[in-house]
């Protein structure tokens, strides 16, 4: 309620009508007018109630009260509603009855009801005080009241009311009039006044109900949440699977953060520089990291813990290392084993620590809205990628489900049996931490965003395979640093090798997860990989340079990326020959030259065979439905499976003062890299290990899923891989 005093006056005159001063009335206001008067004459009669006109408003008389006796008076209350802003003067008319005393008070109220009857109450008496009983209640009620006296007295509001106007006037013959108005913004049992000296008094109180407050609409569930819940995937896990998707935030909070410098696969480069004393220590111990703005600990997304470059990296260590033969280490000391990530230790923590056990069966969801997605495509290569997007959806948004497994198991040479007893082969491409994703390109109707319809589905895999048993992969894009490829297919096409896929359970896509590698497929069964393993001799060594090629400074086009080996030969030849003395130095240089030449000749297609010595990846073992354990949204049943779990993902879950939320917010959840890769955690989600030249057994980085999806989209569009 807002009270706006407009005008008041007390006039001595011998007149039948009176005009107020000019007033301006706000819109949607209730105007209350109190008029007190006394009739001219030595023996006055009881005054008639006047009429109030003006402003093109209709003033309704609410109530009136008289003071009887020798000096008769009348007090009357009026109300009108002003729907619009208006201005002018009011006229108070008494017909033919002349008044020699007239007082008025005009007040506008907004925020009160502007239609319907108003309750009003009256009282009169003699003495030094008066109370008008106001038997009315209501939330936001306003009471406004007027008192008139037959004397000129100073009136004091009582009972918590606030004075609005007080006017008084007195004739020479000592006949006087006082009009006082007051109000209060709440209900009360009465409106009361006090004054000095006995006087006859009359009062009117008017109750102004507040505008009924419309109940606030229930908070609208964010679109990302509605979409995420609508299409949350049903995961089919292989019976041999040891790990399930977990809350990545709780993984971070239970991990230590290490710094590693190049070369990354030696403990000399971890937590210090070569020559520093052992044991080496992480930048932040487990349990000391903050993964959300405002939560205690050092921020995982800050420069100290979150940054990464080609020469300085960060990695999470959730559990210790092992040599794969029964010896484990939790620390990095001179005698520690650091060959592989310790899968058993990771599994034990998720089994035995309640806080971690409760974080299982969790997905994270992010929705890239159409404007942002189209802009991302417009600024990406190839030129016109935004037009490719519009080929498949009119308002394309990308709904991403991020799935974090705490361990990735990937072997070589096991299917063939050639490396069946080899620990190095079993561990060849295994590492702590494993990010995967299910992404839906949806067509988002402008008038009903929640009615979005999937057009394409993207799933990540650890190795590429063909949908039809051939040699061509589906549309894809790879991220070696994340260890995954994004594959994109039509959503339930009517033809092609994935016709009718993915299968749905109550509208949720069914995804088949390969054992260990967590490759995500839209159908069941094993796949033979198209890729080479990147290892050789049962995983016992990784072909590749022992250090990054860009370690040796050079600029522009020269000298070429193969110079490391050439320099080794020339310097080796000259050095060894020089040590022999005499002419052996130059001959040594020649030895290096001839070796470099033999290696430098480009084998072309006219006589040279390419001999492969690499290992063969094992097949990706996605389960059959009937042997699988499914993780399904609550309430979604899937028949014909071995076991069923439910997603535990929640919004705003509070545990020990920390908040866990499945909806991705890259502003507050600092474990996600920012879209520009300038902040957030950009390191590896599992520890480094030793003797790992190519980083095959190091934890992955979090992938740029949008970039992968768009790149795969361009690939599939150019190869005509998206049937309707």
């Amino acid at each position: 309620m807002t009270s706006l005093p407009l005008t008041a006056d007390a006039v001595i005159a011998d007149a039948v009508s009176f005009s107020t001063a000019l007033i301006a009335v706000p819109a949607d206001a209730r105007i209350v007018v109190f008029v007190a008067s006394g009739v001219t004459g030595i023996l006055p009669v009881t005054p008639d109630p006047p009429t109030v006109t003006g402003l093109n408003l209709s003033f309704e008389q609410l109530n009136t009260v008289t003071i009887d006796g020798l000096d008769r008076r009348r007090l009357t209350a009026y109300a009108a509603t002003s729907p619009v802003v208006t201005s002018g003067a009011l006229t108070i008319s008494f017909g033919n009855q002349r008044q020699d005393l007239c007082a008025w008070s005009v007040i506008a109220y907004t925020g009160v009801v502007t239609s319907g009857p108003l309750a009003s109450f009256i009282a009169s008496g003699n003495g030094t005080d008066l109370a008008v009983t106001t038997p009315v209640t209501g939330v936001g009620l306003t009471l406004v009241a007027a008192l008139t006296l037959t004397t000129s007295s100073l009136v004091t509001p009582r009972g918590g009311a606030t004075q609005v106007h007080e006017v008084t006037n007195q004739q020479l013959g000592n006949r006087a009039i006082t009009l006082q108005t007051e109000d209060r913004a709440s209900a009360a049992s009465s409106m009361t006044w006090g004054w000095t000296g006995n006087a006859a008094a009359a009062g009117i109180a008017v109750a102004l109900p507040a505008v009924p407050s419309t109940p606030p609409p229930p908070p609208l569930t964010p679109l990302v949440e509605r979409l995420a819940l609508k299409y949350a995937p049903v995961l089919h896990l292989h019976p041999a699977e040891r790990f399930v998707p977990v809350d990545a935030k709780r993984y971070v909070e239970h991990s230590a953060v290490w710094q590693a410098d190049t070369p990354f696969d030696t403990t000399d480069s971890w937590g210090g520089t070569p020559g520093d004393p052992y044991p080496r220590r992480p930048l932040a111990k487990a349990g000391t990291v903050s993964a959300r703005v405002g939560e205690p600990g050092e921020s995982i997304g800050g420069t100290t813990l979150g940054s990464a470059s080609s020469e300085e990296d960060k990695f999470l260590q959730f559990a210790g290392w092992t040599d794969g033969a029964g010896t484990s280490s939790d620390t990095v000391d001179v005698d520690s084993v650091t060959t592989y990530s310790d899968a058993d230790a990771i599994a034990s923590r998720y089994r035995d620590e309640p806080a971690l056990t409760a974080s299982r069966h969790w997905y994270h969801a992010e929705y890239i809205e159409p404007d942002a997605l189209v802009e991302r495509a417009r600024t990406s290569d190839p030129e016109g990628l935004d037009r490719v997007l519009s080929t498949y959806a009119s308002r394309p948004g990308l709904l991403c489900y991020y799935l974090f497994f705490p361990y990735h198991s990937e072997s070589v040479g096991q299917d063939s049996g050639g490396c069946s007893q080899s620990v190095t082969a079993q561990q060849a491409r295994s590492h702590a931490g494993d990010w995967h994703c299910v992404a839906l390109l949806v067509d988002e109707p402008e008038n009903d965003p929640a009615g979005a319809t999937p057009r394409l589905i993207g799933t990540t895999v650890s190795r590429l395979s063909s949908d039809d048993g051939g040699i061509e992969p589906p549309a894809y894009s790879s991220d070696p640093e994340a260890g995954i490829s994004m594959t994109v297919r039509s959503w339930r096409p009517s033809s092609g090798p994935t016709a009718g896929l993915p299968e749905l359970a109550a509208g949720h896509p069914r995804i088949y997860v390969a054992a260990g590698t967590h490759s995500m497929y839209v159908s069941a069964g094993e796949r033979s990989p198209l890729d080479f393993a990147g290892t050789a001799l049962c995983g016992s060594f990784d072909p590749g340079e022992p250090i990054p090629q860009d370690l040796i400074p050079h600029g522009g086009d020269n000298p070429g990326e193969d110079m490391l080996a050439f320099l080794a030969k020339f310097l080796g030849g000259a050095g060894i020959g020089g040590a022999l003395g005499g002419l052996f130095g130059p001959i040594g240089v020649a030895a290096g030259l001839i070796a470099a030449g033999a290696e430098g000749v480009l084998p072309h297609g006219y006589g040279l065979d390419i001999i492969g010595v690499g290992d063969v990846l094992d097949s990706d073992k996605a389960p059959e439905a009937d042997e699988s354990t499914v993780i399904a949204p609550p309430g979604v049943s899937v028949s014909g499976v071995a076991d069923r779990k439910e997603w535990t993902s929640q919004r705003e879950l509070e545990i020990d003062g920390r908040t866990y939320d499945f909806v991705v917010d890259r502003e507050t959840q600092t474990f996600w890299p920012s879209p520009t890769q300038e902040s957030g955690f950009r390191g590896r989600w599992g520890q480094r290990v030793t003797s790992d030249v190519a980083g095959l057994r190091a934890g992955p980085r979090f992938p740029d899923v949008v970039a992968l999806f768009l790149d795969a989209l361009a690939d599939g569009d150019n190869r005509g891989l998206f049937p309707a």
Partner: protein
Amino acid sequence: MAEPWEQILHHTYAGTPGVIADLSPGRRAHGVAQQISQNQFLPDGTSTGSGAIDFRGGGVVTARIPGANPLRGMRLEVVIAGDRQAEGTLVSGDDFLLSVGTGHLSLYLRGVGPIPSDVVHVAPFRPSPDTWTTVGFVHDGVSTAFMTIDGAVGEQIDGFGLSPLRSVAIGNRMSLHSAFGGLIDDVAIWRANPHRVNQEFFGRPMDESTRQCWLDWLAALTDFARADPDCVAHVMDLVRAVIDEMLARGSAHSDDVRREWQVVSQLYRSTWPTGDLDSVAGVLVEHYDYLAARGLDPMDLPSFIALRDDPCFQRMVETVGAATCDDDFTGEINGVIAGIDSIRNPSGPS
């Protein structure tokens, strides 16, 4: 053994008309269509849905190829169709031009290296309106190029180096004055795998101590390079020059020598990954003997002498030296030194 070629551009011209994605593994050479209407993008080419561009309407596709240099070899293939009189530019690079016209497939090369020169070679060829033809060329990165038509060598070009490659124009020159009067379905470019030599040298079985040996050697090399980067760059230029001159002279000498280099390379590259470095040394010594017998002794090359006598190289030898903690590598080099010495000094050790 590492793959010899790495694809760096692959355009198919299928999919959404006007959007030209690079499908090579690196996906960094996306195309940009200039003055090509949507109608010139045809849905079908060599097969249904394979896409093609009808360059009879003019225009050009351009593509930048970042990070391709230095080129140690290059291979280009373009799939075309057109009437028998169709002519114009198929693909032009910074220093090459593949075109058709007057009954020939033409390749212009701006040579670099020991024998810089410009050359235009032609092979008899006319496009066909009824069948698709794959034309292109392979350059070995040193001195020899082969023009190819449907996989067969149409012309051999010797003695010309390979210039850097930074961008290409497809179906026309950049200046738009030489549009190909036919259709192009597919363009692919490969470079010699720049990681091959390093991968093969270091990608042999070695135990952890040997690997640590090389890490120490590389650390010493890195320290030297950081202290005197100009010296390292200078030595790398000399090393590259002597390798190129040795291979180029052999290639220019005769087909036999060129084939012998290929055979030696094959033997070397197949033996090295097995760790049998004695056999490697034997192969190299025999090859030195083969070259010396034909007047191609590498030690007589001016670029060899320049490297041998270079004070910067000598300082690197003294400071960085050899990775002598790798017994296999040391044994191989010792074997080659002894073998060459016995060839040069048949009467006894020098």
